[in-house]
């Protein structure tokens, strides 16, 4: 039995049955990470992880997550473990505190083994904007893993960890999950505390799980949702997250988003998603077409609002209080040289976009208008959910694209999130599950629901997952 082929739920069972220890599991995964041929990790805390595993093994009563290893996106603050958010701006930075969601998982008995690569400050859809390295898609090392949580997705796909945490602003969990053939979920905005998540766009950022099974994603989610006094936008969670068991979709109404099943979506993707919907019908669901015309403006809306927020969120990085600092004679030089040299091109592009969108005289035309469109999108979703239980669409318009293919054209990169952005703008829960292969690469099915419908979404995803029986193991992955 290869321990790394087990799901997290199975690993917990093995520990509880006394057949393996947390240390066995952590060591097995650390060994894989040591031969990290997909470049998923930016930092590995082998010693810390092993010592936490030993401590959990020594406990008379094991905590719920029993010492199963986990990887955490480098956008999440981890005390004493270098946290860079993929940027030179934070090279070597060791935080003094741990993000609430990570602390909650640790308290539940998860063992953090390391920090995963990402697009700088979560801005990107391929992880190529990392200031450190490219992460490779485990299914095809010449292709991107998606982004910005590309490291978290690749590490799970390559079985270096059973599950991981990512963050999703416009699709940064769902899109890499789709491109790497795994499950990724962005919960309702406010479900998980953002305290310790290095902010990109505060009104959109959400932490969420990546895993190889829907049940694992649900279990991870269970331990991180809920109000945090350190984040006033975090929600009191109404009902506990359940690990899903549904295998039947009788009575479920699935709306297929027409605008995301036509132009701009690769035909191969559409075909695989159509097949998945036929399977859903076989499980008893009713498929109805739904039109979300305003969601087509989602991309434009997003690329005003997210840069606007990031222009303020990233203003704190000035090299004065932490992180590397440029050598400068004057205050202005200090700001300009530090920020000019340590931020990457995409980050600077978005800061400029956002600064412009908020500028006096342009505010109403850009930021103000984008906020109004966002409100319309929220209403459009609400109307749709009066008729259907969940909305279905592809997660990504294409399969994983070759490394370097889109780096010269930012707009083509932005299009990678066209399917995922609307739910982000509306603050709604959405997940991606692998639903088949196109061009020899995984295809993701996105399911979105109304706020707080996580349990239902997970049930639907679980039933489909069982029916589709996608093999998440990339070919050529060493045994």
């Amino acid at each position: 039995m290869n321990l790394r082929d087990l799901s997290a739920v199975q690993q917990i069972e093995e520990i509880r049955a006394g057949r393996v220890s947390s240390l066995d599991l952590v060591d097995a995964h650390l060994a894989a990470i040591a031969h990290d041929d997909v470049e998923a990790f930016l930092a590995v805390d082998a010693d810390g992880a092993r010592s936490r595993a030993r401590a959990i093994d020594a406990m008379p009563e094991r905590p719920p997550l029993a010492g199963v290893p986990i990887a955490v996106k480098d956008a999440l603050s981890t005390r004493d473990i270098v946290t860079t958010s993929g940027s030179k701006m934070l090279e070597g930075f060791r935080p003094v505190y741990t993000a609430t969601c990570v602390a909650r998982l640790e308290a539940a008995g998860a063992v953090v083994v390391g920090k995963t690569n990402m697009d700088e400050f979560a801005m990107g859809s391929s992880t190529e904007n990392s200031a450190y390295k490219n992460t490779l898609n485990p299914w095809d090392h010449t292709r991107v893993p998606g982004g910005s949580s590309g490291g978290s997705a690749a590490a799970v796909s390559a079985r270096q960890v059973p599950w991981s945490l990512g963050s999703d602003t416009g699709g940064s969990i769902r899109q890499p999950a789709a491109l790497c053939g795994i499950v990724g979920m962005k919960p309702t905005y406010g479900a998980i505390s953002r305290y310790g998540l290095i902010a990109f766009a505060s009104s959109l950022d959400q932490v969420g799980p990546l895993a190889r099974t829907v049940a694992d994603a649900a279990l991870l989610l269970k331990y991180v949702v809920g109000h945090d006094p350190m984040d006033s936008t975090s929600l009191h969670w109404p009902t506990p997250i359940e690990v899903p068991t549904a295998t039947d979709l009788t009575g479920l109404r699935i709306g297929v988003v027409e605008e995301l099943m036509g132009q701009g979506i690769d035909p191969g993707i559409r075909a695989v998603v159509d097949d998945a919907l036929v399977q859903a019908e076989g499980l008893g669901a009713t498929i109805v077409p739904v039109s979300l015309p305003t969601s087509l403006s989602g991309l434009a809306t997003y690329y005003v609002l997210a840069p606007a927020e990031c222009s303020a969120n990233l203003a704190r990085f000035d090299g004065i209080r932490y992180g590397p600092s440029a050598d400068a004679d004057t205050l202005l030089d200090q700001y300009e040289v530090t920020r000019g040299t340590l931020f990457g091109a995409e980050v600077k592009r978005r800061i400029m976009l956002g600064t412009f969108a908020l500028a006096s005289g342009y505010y109403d035309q850009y930021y103000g208008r984008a906020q109004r469109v966002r409100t319309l999108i929220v209403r459009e979703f609400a109307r749709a959910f009066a008729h259907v239980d969940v909305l279905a669409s592809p997660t990504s318009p294409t399969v994983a694209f070759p490394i370097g293919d889109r780096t010269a054209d930012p707009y083509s990169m932005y299009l990678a999130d066209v399917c995922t952005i609307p739910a982000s703008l509306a603050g709604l829960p959405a997940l991606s599950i692998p639903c088949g292969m196109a061009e020899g690469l995984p295809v993701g099915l996105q399911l979105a629901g109304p706020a707080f419908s996580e349990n239902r979404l997970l049930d639907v995803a679980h039933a489909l997952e069982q029916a589709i029986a996608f093999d998440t193991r990339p070919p050529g992955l060493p045994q």
Partner: protein
Amino acid sequence: MSDLEPVIGVEIHVQLSTRTKMFCGCEPSFGDAPNTHTCPVCLAHPGVLPVVNEEAIRRAIIIGHALGCDIAPRSIFHRKNYFYPDLPKAYQISQFDIPICGRGSFTALREDGSELVVGITRVHLEEDAAKLTHAGVGGRRVGADGSVVDFNRGGTPLVEIVTEPDLRSASDTATFLRQLRQTLLFLGVSDCSMEEGSMRADANVSVRPVGSQALGVKTELKNMNSFRFLERGVEAEIARQREVIGSGGDITQETVHYEPDTGHITSLRSKEESHDYRYFPEPDLVPVVPDRAWVDELRASLPELPIPLRRRLVGEMGLSVEDAEVITQSPQLVAYFMDAAGQADPKLCANWIRGELRAQLRDIGQEPWQSKVTPTHIAQIVGLVADGTVSVPAAKEVLAGVIETGDDPAALVQAKGLAQISDEGELAAIIGAIVDAHPEQAQQLREGQNKVIGFFVGQAMKQSGGRADPQAVQRLVRKVVLGE
């Protein structure tokens, strides 16, 4: 040039003396070792989030009530963006178009008793910046050798009170600010120390032809650390503007600074180069939606405020305007006075408290409520004078004794033998001897020089150890010398 009238509005920043900062759990501090009251949140470490201090909300609402403002059923925070080392996030969390308190007004009393009504535009909540210290060249930024930052102050809750341009003179501006400060002290929301910077006022000054409704170009007079300097600064700026316009020039919208040493106004920076703050709603915070019942409860529990209280002290308790002004300097003094006034004549209590008590305590650096003298002691002393037990000079000695020992005034009169001599026989003997010893003065009195009587009173007081009843002495001197 006298046909130009000044138009003045003020912006007042008040640090709230809450236990914790505006958006984190650190204790705000003044004077502690630098950077000892900080945390990841107020240092803007990556990934942190602000959480609103509920006590600051409470105090802002109390201030709003005291200023008669509309309390917003829903207000929001904005980010005000600018780069400066005293602002670690590079944005200040403030309020913009939906502040917590809307329009209100404040009525101050001028020295002549007339009312000074000032419209309040808004009261909003924000966080203070950190403290920058510039090394070299007199502590100014330009040309400094280097600068250091102390984040202890960073994130301290601030309210900004903005007035309408309703003030028409420098002295009205100072009167308004002094009485506003007094009101804030009564609310117990802030230390309001100008020296320590927990209250700061900026004045927007312009002039316009008398009778004009349009506003002239304004300048902003910044960083006044006392009301006296502020008054002088506003005065100087008005004079400067009158002179500029009088000689055909134009006022530039800019920030100006008053140099107390020279009395000169200097320009700090032109507003034309000012920042575009790129305000936008703070996505890390949810709207402030105070419970209606709580808002009403806060209004109902406001203490009696100094201006209405002054009116009551004068109108109902017989105090002079000056008495009332002194007594209402602090809520502690009001409580002290009220306690005494409940036990003896209020006017006489006020005289003793604002006069002799404060004068004697000043020497040992105490306030009345900190001293051994209780309000009951004051009432007792007033009573001892009123019933003729002691003379006023003797009563002052009794007071000195109470300050020292805290003993009962009546007991001190006994112990020190200070009871007034009103017995005509005893006094007549003393006066007879004095008159005999000073025939020259007696003659002068006979010749009609009435003021000489003071000489005899003085002698009698001296020889009786202050115990003689001065009224009786006067009467007896006239009787002995003039046979009246």
